[in-house]
């Protein structure tokens, strides 16, 4: 036995000495990276065809009827990846100022599901999508009413619904979104003229990665009005192939009539509530035992209250490390982004007070275990009260009970 371990040591020493001299050369590194990156980007393009959404997260191309991606769609609202912050040359502030007065928008164009037209209206804050309806050429109609989302599928004669705003613009085409676009480092601005109208146009091109995959887009603004007039969005980084979403026409309105959001569904469809789910691809990070909190001895309701209280207090305190520990998805975001778009230091929509945490409103299951949606009411710096619905993931890792926050369930709504 002694001799065997002596031989092991001889071999160990041999490899140890040998390894210290083994390094890749810079030429080899370059050759490998030069070949690996295009292969990787090609695979992203292929993959993106099966991944959902667009920058506006209109769920139309996501087969509203299918279970699933609502949480992912909405997660993007808060958790968008960008590179380092950097202001674009174009005065984005002018466009930001221009859209402030407009609380409604009409769009028409094409998506993977077919041609569409949609109407959207923001809430009183001018920052959150509230009323929304989209009609697609395949007969699908999706709408939001009283804080719930519905999707009528004529081929099934069914209406799928959930008690959260999971349809619509997760980020209103307003000042906050434009600020975000302006902070993306690779955003490019170009000037030109519309050959049809002769009007001057400003075109913004950018790309980023969020939790649903790579995204790139082109938004065209009218130079004079500073309002967006068209947009295209691709599920890849280089704007190749057909866009996943193309709004060829965008018209802003200061006010629109309620009747535009009225829905008349023919026949007598069956109403089916969508189950609460989270995307499988987020399970890996959510399952890491280094994140979250122990919930030993707590009921699910008590656990939700504890972790959500910790989370909102961390946001109020600007404690980025705590935010990341409680909500593992934020781990991929850089600190500057978290400061700007979650903590929102100094902005009027900065969270300043946690008002209440409600009872669990819905339960579901992920591959990791049970999940629950819980309403949270908070007050912003400008005094406005908002309500989030947050999804908490429960875990049993090696006998240790714990939980983490997955992210928002639906779009934040003004609390009244």
């Amino acid at each position, binding site marked *: 036995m002694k001799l065997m371990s002596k031989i092991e040591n001889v071999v160990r020493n041999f490899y140890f000495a040998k390894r210290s001299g083994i390094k890749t050369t810079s030429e080899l590194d370059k050759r490998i990276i030069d070949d690996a990156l295009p292969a990787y980007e090609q695979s992203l393009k292929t*993959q993106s065809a099966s991944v959902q959404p667009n920058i506006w997260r209109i769920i139309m191309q996501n087969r509203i009827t299918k279970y699933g991606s609502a949480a992912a769609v909405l997660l993007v609202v808060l958790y968008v990846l960008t590179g380092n912050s950097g202001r674009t040359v174009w005065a984005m502030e002018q466009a930001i100022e221009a859209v402030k007065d407009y609380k409604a928008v009409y769009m028409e164009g094409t998506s993977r599901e077919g041609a569409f037209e949609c109407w959207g209206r923001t809430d009183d804050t001018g920052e959150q999508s509230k009323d929304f309806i989209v009609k697609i050429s395949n007969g699908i109609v999706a709408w939001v009413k009283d804080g719930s989302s519905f999707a009528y599928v004529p081929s099934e004669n069914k209406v799928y619904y959930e008690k959260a705003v999971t349809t619509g613009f997760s980020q209103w085409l307003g000042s906050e979104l434009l600020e975000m676009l302006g902070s993306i480092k690779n955003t490019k601005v170009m000037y030109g003229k519309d050959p049809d109208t002769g009007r001057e146009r400003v075109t913004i091109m950018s790309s980023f990665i969020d939790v649903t995959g790579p995204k790139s887009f082109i938004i065209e603004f009218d130079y004079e009005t500073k309002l967006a007039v068209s947009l295209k969005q691709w599920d890849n980084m280089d704007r190749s192939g057909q866009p996943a979403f193309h709004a060829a026409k965008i018209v802003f309105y200061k006010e629109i009539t309620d009747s535009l959001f009225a829905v008349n569904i023919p026949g007598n469809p069956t109403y089916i509530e969508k189950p609460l789910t989270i995307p499988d*691809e987020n399970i890996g990070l959510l399952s890491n035992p280094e994140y979250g909190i122990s919930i030993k001895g707590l009921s699910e309701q008590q656990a939700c209250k504890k972790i959500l209280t910790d989370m909102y207090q961390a946001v109020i305190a600007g404690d980025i490390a705590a935010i990341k520990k409680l909500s593992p998805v934020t781990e991929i975001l850089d600190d500057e982004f978290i400061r700007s778009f979650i903590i929102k230091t100094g902005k009027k929509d900065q969270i300043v007070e946690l008002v209440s945490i409600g009872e669990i409103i819905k339960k579901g299951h992920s591959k990791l275990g049970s999940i629950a949606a819980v309403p949270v009411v908070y007050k912003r710096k400008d005094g406005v009260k908002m309500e989030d619905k947050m999804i908490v993931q429960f875990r049993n890792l090696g006998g240790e009970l714990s939980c983490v926050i997955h992210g928002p369930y639906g779009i934040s709504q003004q609390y009244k």
Partner: protein
Amino acid sequence: MLEDKILVWKLKRGSSDALRRIYEKYKDDLLALAIALSNDRTVAEDVLHDVFVSFAEYAVKLQLRTSLKSYLLSCVVNRIRSLHSIKSRQNEQVYDAEDIEHDCNEPVRLAILTEQSKLVELALSELPYQQREVIVLHINSQIRFKDIAEMQGESINTIQSRYRYGLEKLKLQLNGKV
């Protein structure tokens, strides 16, 4: 481990920076393993290239059942296995033992160590490939028997037997010489 999980998570979401970071993190380990198994730096570099490009190509669909490091190492092992030139190269000592770095400034001691390294390398190269593979993975790449067994689709007993037989052969060849 945590960093790897995040890297894989980012990678699956289109981060080319994550791809670069994974390469930087494991390139030397993978190359060392490839060299230890193939005894040929040129072959080893090609293996590293092929493994990593293939990894990049399928990264988005990656489903890891082991650690990222184990996964990449097993890719190297599989790639080298599939190269039929292994046998013919087993006896080649492409690696110059003088290249081995020893923490020793005394010329006589250095000469002894260099000579010993040559003997160990020769003895290792004469082992059956499967036994050498287990020894390389366990000692050089510090992979546990359980993980090697998983990587190779064998029972842990088989892996431990290969390791033991390999060491016994080394013992016979090196006994008294090192």
